[in-house]
């Protein structure tokens, strides 16, 4: 563990808060919500209800109520699925990978990122269900013993998805919960009323004893070690849904790294989108500082450039590879019916992040916030372009078609955001969104000689 760390690397500004202050400040973010919170929550629930109604309507009448136009058999749903899985990734990256790399600055933001991961996966996980034609038989994708004596096809990338996403969900949830335990205990000893009951239960009898810490630190380390390859595998698997097929524009070896980079890219953007308002509302400026944002934006710049590079390579290979279908497909992307989607994606993901080269931009919270929003938009369109546009221009000229999403899809899409934010709001008001323990951890414990001196 990082024992004596210089203020420079802690990222928290001087004067360093004492342990007491930290507990107090962070515990203060919980407490009873304001009226604004309830209004926001009500709004989120309404949007969610809209999505649910749309889904029920779709289940009742069939997938036809969505805008699907063969040959485009996958549309907004799969796009959004990939989008949310992507969002999830930076969470694990920041909490696990940066943890392994001992980069101290993560402590202030990792809890938010991790919660985001869990909720994002929960959202993503809904979409494969929403998009299958017989939702009520979706459980057939699980290899359980059944009277038909049939099993599932493990050669299908969709099966890999089932395993990858559910594993990812389980592991990241465990990771979040384990990290929370000491914090909950800390709050428990401050809280009163029903909250105290809640925390007494959820802290699982944590007291911070020597032996508890002894096992805890190890377990946490190994969880991080497991989460790291997992996070890389999950989005690779998602990318293979496409790369394993023969659709021009999908069938590319570059997909796994390309998707992982994109995932982290979009994830970091989402972390920024979430932290900026959170920090304001919870008055966390003291813990989540401009410096954190700068680091995040550097990460965003890096992944953004990898993504941009992937775009270039895609088009280059399409041309250089000389495969007629590939070429046609990419030409259609840039100049076909969907040129607008493609260029939205290229501008938002390829060009806008270049502003991050300027320190000024990196250190300006509002600028970062706007930029992050654009990246989120761009990354959604990236998936849209890869999925829809490729499908609309495949091998059979006679069977090519044009797809436009229907109101049902838009409602369900917005519903998914509502679903995500519902969980996040609940979390933010009931559990510390900044890790008490880890923030303390990077501040050395007081020593006698200091006190005397």
């Amino acid at each position, binding site marked *: 563990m990082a024992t004596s760390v210089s203020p420079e690397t802690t990222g928290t500004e001087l004067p360093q808060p004492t342990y007491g202050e930290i507990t107090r400040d962070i515990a203060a973010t919980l407490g009873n919500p304001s009226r604004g919170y309830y209004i926001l929550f009500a709004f989120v629930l309404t949007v969610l209800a809209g999505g649910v109604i749309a889904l029920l309507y779709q289940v009742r009448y069939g997938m036809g109520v969505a805008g699907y136009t063969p040959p485009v058999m996958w549309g907004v749903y799969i796009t959004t699925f990939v989008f949310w899985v992507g969002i999830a990734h930076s969470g694990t990256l920041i909490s696990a990978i940066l943890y392994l790399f001992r980069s101290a600055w993560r402590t202030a933001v990792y809890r938010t990122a991790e919660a985001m991961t869990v909720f994002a996966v929960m959202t993503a996980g809904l979409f494969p269900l929403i998009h299958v034609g017989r939702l009520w038989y979706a459980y057939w994708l699980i290899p359980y013993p059944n009277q038909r004596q049939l099993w599932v096809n493990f050669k299908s990338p969709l099966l890999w998805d089932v395993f990858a996403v559910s594993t990812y969900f389980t592991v990241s949830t465990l990771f979040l919960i384990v990290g929370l335990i000491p914090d909950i205990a800390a709050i428990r000893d401050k809280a009163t009323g029903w909250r105290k009951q809640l925390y007494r239960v959820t802290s699982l009898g944590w007291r911070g004893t020597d032996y508890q810490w002894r096992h805890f630190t190890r377990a946490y380390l190994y969880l991080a070690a497991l989460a790291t390859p997992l996070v890389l595998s999950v989005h690779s698997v998602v990318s293979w849904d496409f790369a394993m097929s023969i659709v021009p524009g999908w069938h590319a070896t570059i997909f796994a790294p390309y998707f992982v980079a994109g995932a982290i890219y979009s994830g970091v953007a989402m972390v920024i989108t979430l932290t900026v308002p959170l920090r304001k509302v919870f008055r966390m400026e003291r813990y989540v500082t401009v410096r954190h944002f700068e680091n995040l934006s550097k990460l965003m710049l890096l992944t953004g450039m990898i993504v941009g590079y992937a775009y270039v390579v895609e088009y280059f290979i399409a041309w250089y590879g000389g495969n007629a279908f590939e070429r046609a497909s990419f030409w259609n992307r840039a100049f076909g019916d969907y040129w607008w989607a493609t260029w939205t994606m290229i501008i938002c993901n390829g060009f806008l992040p270049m502003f991050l080269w300027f320190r000024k931009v990196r250190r300006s919270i509002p600028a970062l916030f706007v930029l992050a929003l654009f990246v989120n938009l761009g990354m959604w369109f990236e998936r849209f372009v890869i999925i829809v546009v490729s499908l609309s221009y495949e091998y059979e000229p006679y*069977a090519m078609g044009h797809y436009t999403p229907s109101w049902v899809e838009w409602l369900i899409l917005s519903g998914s955001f509502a679903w995500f934010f519902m969980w996040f709001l609940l979390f933010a008001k009931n559990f510390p969104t900044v890790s008490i323990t880890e923030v303390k951890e990077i501040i050395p414990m007081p020593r006698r000689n200091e006190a005397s001196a």
Partner: protein
Amino acid sequence: MTDEMNRRKFLKVLGVTGGGAATLAGCSTDQVEHLIPYLVPNEDQIPGIATYYASTCRECSAGCGVHLRVREGRAVKVEGNPDHPVNRGRLCGRAQASLQGTYNPDRVRQPLARNADGQFDKISWDDALGRVAQAVSSANPDNVWFVTGNEGGSFDRFVDEWLAALGSSHRVVFEPFAHEALRHAARQVFGVDAVPSYRFEDAEYVLSLGADFLETWISPVEQARGFAASHGFHEGMGRYVHVEPRMSMTAMSADEWIAPAPGTEGLLALAMAQVILADGLGRFPTDARRLENTLASYTPDAVAARTEVPAEKILRLAREFAAVPSVALPGGAGTQHPDAHLTAAASLLLNYVAGNVGTTVVFGADQNVAGGSTYTSLRTFQETAVASAPDVLFIHGANPGYATPAAGAAFAAAQQNASLTVSFSRFVDETTAAADLILPDHDPYEQWNDYTPRVGVRSLQQPVMQPVFDTRQTGDVLLEVARQVGGLLARRLAPAGDGATYKDYLQNQWRRVQRDLGDRRPFDEFWREALQRGGVWGESPRRTMRLAASAATLTAPGWSTPEGQFTLIAYPSMSLLDGRGANRPWLQELPDPVTKMTWGSWVEIHPETADGLGIAEGDEVEVTSPDGSIRAPAYLHPGLRPDVVAVPFGQGHTAFGQYATDRGANVYRVLSAQPTEFGGVSHYAAVTVQPTGAHERMAKTEGKRRQLGRGIAQAVTLAAIHEGEAHPFHMAPAAEPPEREEHILEEVAEMQREATEYGPYAYEQTRWGMAIDLSQCTGCSACVVACSAENNVPHVGADQIRHGREMHWIRIERYFEGGENGEPLEARVLPMMCQQCGHAPCEPVCPVYAAYHTPDGLNAQVYNRCVGTRYCSNNCPYKVRYYNWFDMSTPEDPRTFAWPDPMHWLLNPDVTVRSKGVMEKCTFCVQRIRGAQHQAKLEGRALTDGEVVTACQQTCPSNAIVFGNLTDPNSAVAQLAADERGYHVLDGLNTTPAVTYLQKVRNLVEP
């Protein structure tokens, strides 16, 4: 209530079955079904086993023989009668859909009478018959009129006799496409009122002057067979030149398409005749010399300007035409303009001077194209009716209230004048909607009748099942009326005997037939055999023709359109014909073979013209003639002269049931009511075309029109083949599979040997495959309907088609080639269905094994296992998997319900009805394969080649599809698959399809 009665009656013969459209629920076996056994044993009805009854298709005048497949007492499928001389077992799409007429939800279910406030009341048969009898007996016999369609058989004679017995002579036969011009021309040139049979199979050179002989003209199925024999690839295959301002489906199979100035096809023919005569090329009879003066003035140079066809081309055509046995066909819109009789006559002359009359143009075996109907006779009726109101007007088998200019306004007026209009129609069409009494007739498949498609062929109809509704055969109704009226009418019909039915009358007619044939056997024997065969036919008679005097008086045909206007060509719709098919959803949804449009009307405009008028595809345009105007979306058709616009007949019904009403525009509204010189309706009109500003997403099934050089539909020139250069285009050099794959196949084979009965995957035993010869496929789309009928494929409606969600398991892809910067326009067609790939990309991606490979090489789709991820469809390069976006099979969702009662009685009980959310696709008619395998096994033998016949193959009029076992080197399909013209679509993807296409062969002129 009466419906209920009918259902009972039906169930009584239904035998053991749940019946109806049970849908694909989960695996629950707990719905309570009732089993209703036969009351009395029915020796030719074993539950679960199909019986076939011979009958005759009455969808058009061609009169093809059919076999009806009957299961548990209900007809479930129409197939051609292999013995029948007209169609030899093949059928067109319209015939395949004919059962949708039988089971149409909009059929008149019992007699109806118009009440005071103009609505129809349900009445009993006694009441109905009483009313008619009463009206007839009180009517002035000479003021009773009877309008029928082309009945062409005993019923034709029966109506005449009935009228005669009554003392009336006012029989009007009305058939919209009556080919008056052809008959007029035959009178003028040979002095006979007849339409000859054209023997394509004997011709090596086919010249069509606008005749859509593969679509609607005279006898399409028979002609398609003959054409395939002449023009399908073989040593010395024929050449086919099509002359028409518009590229029709028929023209798409042409080696050369010539678009002359509208109305000048005949002129071209005259010029060719002139050349042949002048240069003495043909093997013409001596008396042809008499024409020299007549033809003298029509030298190629003289006509070149007016036809807009270069003189040397005409010269060339003439030489080619005379060089080999040839045939010139007048027809289509080309013989429906004011001078069309001259065009027809010119073509007869051309045939005559080329010595074709008697060889490829056979008089004697005259075609019954319209039962002698003429538009003028209908006009006469209309005028008389307006003058002296008819007391009773009977209408049977005709819809003049729709299919005449101004959408039947004149006839409607006449009908208004009649004090009582009695319609025997099965549907409330426009004419019937205005009738006072409706006495619904049986469906052709429910009644006793016969039909004579051409001299020498007598085709029988028999009831193949209980009537679906409380209808009665018109013959019986008329007899009953006669009885009730009594007196002269009853006595004169004595031959029918007292209490006799129309069936007795029919049998009396057939006693005569037997006598004429000099058949000595007892009648019952003769009758039973005739019923089994579907009719009687012998050698068709031939008559030698000599020129009539009037032949020399021939003048030049022509047509002119005022400056700034367009020539409108109204052409018969291949699927709806004159509109009688419009209430069959399968036909409405059948993409037009040229434009791929469904469920509506359209105006074909040449792209350049459209640019000029600022019209984009889908823009609604208004087509206005002096007689009226219609509105329809524009379709940009490259195969059209820029000065021509074309609109198909058949849509714009104001009645005729849920599928037909208020759909598209009735092009009759812009045609002139003035009869032409030959006594027909002109299908040409001078029109202006204006965009209305409205726009719609068109309900068509085509994506891109060009194949982007991907070698989907391939063609090769005959010359290339002769030089041994028929090398199909390959996406990538056909690569040997690496060893890796070899040993994989080994394992898999071993695996399968143990796993199953049907033989290993490595194709040592059965692998089902198909070969499709594009040199024979004409794009007629009969296979599409046949497939729908066999496999319970639902129709989805216009809105879904706009979303590209059509369900046809087999589709006809149409690609245009050339047509730019000078090179000639070519159209290619390709039937695309599941290619049953060996390395199917759709299979491995299915998470639940719903798509997998059967041991006998089928790419199976297990509906009840499918959860609907649609991944397989994304991964299918051929895009032949179709998804149930809605529930087509349950009434819960009226928007998409495809089988309203009693339509669901049409469902094939051997095939699962798919439900919402599952993927489906061509199965190679696996139910037929398994059926045949079961049969063979029961008989303890192996399957023989050709024993399994898929629905598409069975119906294909030009015999382009062959199905069988690819691993048996002697099977027909295996040999075709090895043909030098053979190729797999997108072979570079190494999907190893089981479907082999044989390149189209174009017999082009040697440069």
